[in-house]
């Protein structure tokens, strides 16, 4: 038996009362204490309220919430609800389980138990914030910052609250303060977002640059910076940062998407596709990914694969106009004009202010021999965007083919005006203009004001052998009038007129509009909304019905969907189906 030494007096007294309970359990320690006779009446040891805090904490961090709750209950029973930390953890668990209101009440209990704790106030504020009571949260945070004046968390969260209250100046101030206290990457990201909301891209870039200096290996920050550079048009730097991000995390889907879309911009279809393979494994249900893959195949002229991928993308995100736009484009180049028309008008329903969509629609309508509506669509496109040279060019071609030379030359002159303000004009457009110009008997540098010359030229055409006759009628050429279904032909008036249109019940749904052009176009829009996609039956849809993978966290700037598909690709393809071949 060991000798027990009692070094200080405390142990003697301690040993006494513990001895009473120990006797049955540990035979050895009582031997010590029995030597000291207990006093006549000894008060029972009161357990410390906090005695199980460490255990509660341990279970909490291990996410063993069930055991944790049992422990908390025991602890609270034992201490009569006075154990602050137990209440605190219970509140945290409630929050984790989504019971924000309950957690708020418990945190408020904590502040009652210990009014001097800034931590408790911070949690109360956090709960208020989660309940979207931002003003109340700000009040409590301010109270907490009186207790803990230099706290990064308080400053940061205050900033977030102000951001939600749209008080950008104060939010900025708070984030800057937070960064001064401690350089957390979240504060940088939020501050960057704030600048982005204000449209101050350069400041956002600066903030991101600072953040990257402090966290040089964070793929998230590098990607964000890369995307920002993309937005301000510094593609070289954007690519560098995205490349760095991919070095640190080659599986970073967002960086892959952004880098891939840049490669697509440079027509590096195969490299982009290789990168997309990684993303396809990580996020197989990302509609943007399938859109980009589809456009890669389109670039490689694998049209069937392109349509497959785009249709999958459309299945995953049916309301994304960009996918519909690309589908329309691919179908146009496949000469599936009826399908193209449906996709394009569906896209117009989601994005009614986009001139290029109307232009493509007009091209589709031209090929569907609906010249009236095509003209309306062109006019709508021009009214939405009078800078794009391709719209007046295409319109001029249509008008010319339709025999309206005067109007054609008017739009050709608009085209020549437009190309002056646009830096990089597609060569195909210029070629077209130079071909169309002589046909209309006007010089390349014709100015619309020159009325007399125009009249003269139109007169002279009559004398010359008509150039139009030399070539097949461009619109009619691919289709020998729908004679095959002559029975149908008899019954169907070529898409009903505007006047009859207004009496039709579609106006009940659309709301009649006085402007004729609008009405006509709005008709084409409504058409689409209920249209079952022709080839949908053949589309092998992905079988999984899981919710979409989380896409870029709501930052509008960061959707790395193909922007360039809307600028470069359509122009060229579009012209191929207009009278390029014919001239």
């Amino acid at each position, binding site marked *: 038996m*060991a000798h027990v*030494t009692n070094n200080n007096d405390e142990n003697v007294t301690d040993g006494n009362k513990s001895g009473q309970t*120990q006797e049955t359990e540990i035979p050895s320690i009582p031997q010590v204490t029995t030597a000291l006779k207990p006093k006549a009446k000894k008060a029972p040891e009161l357990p410390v309220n906090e005695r199980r805090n*460490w255990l509660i904490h341990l279970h909490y961090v*291990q996410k063993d919430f069930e055991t944790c709750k049992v422990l908390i209950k025991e602890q609270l029973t034992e201490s009569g609800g006075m154990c602050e930390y137990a209440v605190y953890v219970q509140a945290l668990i409630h929050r984790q389980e989504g019971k924000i209101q309950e957690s708020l009440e418990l945190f408020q209990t904590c502040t009652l138990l210990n009014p001097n704790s800034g931590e408790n106030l911070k949690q109360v504020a956090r709960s208020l914030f989660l309940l979207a009571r931002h003003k109340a949260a700000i009040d409590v945070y301010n109270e907490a910052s009186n207790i803990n004046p230099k706290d990064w968390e308080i400053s940061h969260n205050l900033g977030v609250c102000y951001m939600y209250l749209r008080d950008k100046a104060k939010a900025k101030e708070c984030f800057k303060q937070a960064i001064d206290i401690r350089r957390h990457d979240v504060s940088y990201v939020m501050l960057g977002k704030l600048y982005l909301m204000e449209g101050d891209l350069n400041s956002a870039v600066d903030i991101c640059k600072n953040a990257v200096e402090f966290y040089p290996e964070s793929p998230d920050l590098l990607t964000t910076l890369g995307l920002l550079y993309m937005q301000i048009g510094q593609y070289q730097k954007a690519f560098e940062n995205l490349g760095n991000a991919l070095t640190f995390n080659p599986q970073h889907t967002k960086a892959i998407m952004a880098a891939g879309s840049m490669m697509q911009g440079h027509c590096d279809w195969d490299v982009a596709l290789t990168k997309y393979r990684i993303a396809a494994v990580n996020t197989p249900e990302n509609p943007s990914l399938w859109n980009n893959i589809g456009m890669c195949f389109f670039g490689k002229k694998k049209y069937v694969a392109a349509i497959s991928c785009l249709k999958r993308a459309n299945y995953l995100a049916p309301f994304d106009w960009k996918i519909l736009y690309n589908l329309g484009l691919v179908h146009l180049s496949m000469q599936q004009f009826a399908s193209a028309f449906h996709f394009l008008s569906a896209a117009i329903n989601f994005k009614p202010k986009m001139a290029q969509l109307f232009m493509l629609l007009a091209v589709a309508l031209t090929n569907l021999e609906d010249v009236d509506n095509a003209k309306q669509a062109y006019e709508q496109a021009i009214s939405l965007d009078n800078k794009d040279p391709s719209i007046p060019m295409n319109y001029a071609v249509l008008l010319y083919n339709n025999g309206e030379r005067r109007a054609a030359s008017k739009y050709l002159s608009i085209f020549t005006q437009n190309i002056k303000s646009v830096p990089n004009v597609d060569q195909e457009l210029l070629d077209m203009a130079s071909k169309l110009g002589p046909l209309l008997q006007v010089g390349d540098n014709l100015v619309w004001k020159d009325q007399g010359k125009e009249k003269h030229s139109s007169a002279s055409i009559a004398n010359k052998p008509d150039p139009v006759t030399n070539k097949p009628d461009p619109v009619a050429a691919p289709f020998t009038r729908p004679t095959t279904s002559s029975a149908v032909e008899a019954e169907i008036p070529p898409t009903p007129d505007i006047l009859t249109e207004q009496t039709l019940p579609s106006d009940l749904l659309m709301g009649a509009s006085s402007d004729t052009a609008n009405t006509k176009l709005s008709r084409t829009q409504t058409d689409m909304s209920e249209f079952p996609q022709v080839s949908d039956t053949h589309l092998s849809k992905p079988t999984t019905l899981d919710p979409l993978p989380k896409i870029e966290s709501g930052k509008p700037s960061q959707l790395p969907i193909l922007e360039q598909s809307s600028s470069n690709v359509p122009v060229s393809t579009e012209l191929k189906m207009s009278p390029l071949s014919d001239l």
Partner: protein
Amino acid sequence: MTSKWLDAYHDPVASLYTFTQCLTLADIQADGDWKLIIADLGTGSYDMKLKVYKNTNLMSEHAIIDLPTGVVNFYMDTLEPRTPAIAVASGPYIYIYKNLRPYFKFTLPPLSINQIEQELWEQAKHDNINVFVLRDALEGLRSDGQLLTVRSLKFLQLESTDLEAFANLHKHAPLKRQTVITCLDTLKKSLADEDAISCLVVGTENKSIYILDPEAFTVLTTVDLPSIPVFISVNGLYDVEYRLVVSCRNGCIYTLKRGSKEGSKYCIELNSQPVGMERINKTIYVGCMDETLQCYSSKGKKLWTIKLPTSITTMKTLDYSPRQLKTLLVALSNNEIHMYKDKYLVDVIKTEGVVTGLQFGRFGREDGTLVMTTRGGGLFVKILKRSAKFEEKDALAGPPISQNQKINIPKKTKLFVDQTLRERQNAVAMHRTFQRDLYLLRLNTARQYVKALDNSMNPISSDPTEPLKLSAQIQGIGPTFKLTVNLQNTSLSQPTSNLIITFNYDDKLYSFRNKFIEAPMLVPGLNYAFETFIDCLNEKGVSDNVKVYVLKSGRSVPIITGVISMPVSEAVAVA
């Protein structure tokens, strides 16, 4: 991949409730046969035991009075043979065992007591103030935010009838305020030898760290922290230079050096609560609740972060000196243990439960032994194979595997191609047919709508003076059905009266027992149900529509109409 581990012991029902902190391996009998010492939390409220395993057999058991917080072994003297002592932290005490016998009990120094509180109890002791005055005074102190003793806190919770008895029972004992140990570690005192004397390092609930002298059991150093310590990692020598890395409940990690009294100088603020913290050489590894493993330099600079597949339960350093191997073991809640060498995952061990206790070291006569305890109470021992090699796979070199996988592009059938060709040839016709049909469809819809409006065929009244809503239900499987007509007045304030409900049906098929229902006055907002039975007369499984009309007496055009599609009578169908 063959496993790098041998299974040495396997007991899924050892009924252990313990954690990494409560496991240790020590040569407590100085015979070269290392024992496993486990402080078992029992049920969590009683039956706490200190268990010693010799080669997987339970060698001895000692009861512990309160929940054990941590167990360490350390050399407290220079006597031969070199037998280490075991220290078990529990509540405010540290129990020291030597040669498997209780040897000494150390109590943490009591905390300072509020002067006023002390005086109040002193007064109460001499019956100078009565219990109610005492209670009010204490309550005042508490609401000022003063930290009171447990006795006062308990006293404040009592019913007024119990105050007297409680005060009488306790007032003679000296008032004291105690704290609780939250973590425990050792620190070599002046020599770095394997069997050199070590100090105990104790973290407590009152945000302090104490370093205790192993021979005299006095407090050598006290450091105050901004928060309550949870995990401690110690290295260095007490007499020369040492460094304590302490992770706290506020989610911060503080680094303390010899001589520093305040812990807030070097501080790492984490975004999430740490679940485990280990120090290998000069880097600090922290596993966080947000399923990340983070690495910091000793200066507090973040080096890298790894996202783990699931949440961490505990962490432990693997220090295998024969192979100069130092890696980090991270137990995850998906029944796996991941082994990291720097930032590279070098091994994955599958386990039979969620591991909550991990210890690596010498056990028995085997150097590389991994002891695991699970949440379910199991105890597992694995031995590291001597042939095992852990290669750092450089995850950054070369493209990820997924880059070589083909993209799964949906296939298209020949039908698709045929349809494409068909569309190319007939696009205009298809378009026009579609447009025409669409207009016809719309026209038809509009006509039907107008017709419905004209005939009051719709179940919601279009008449603004009689805003009514009708719904009907058929119950039963036949040949007798029950029809329930629900009528609701949807106006805000106007009651409706003089309504009649009647039916239109094929009298060869159905017979209504009640063909005419007079509705009472309808109060706005309430739902009125009217019932009638219908008998199906046809036995050939034919069904028809039945119309419900709601009429205003004196008008022949119904206000609203409901069309009910009758089900096929079941009895008839069977027959």
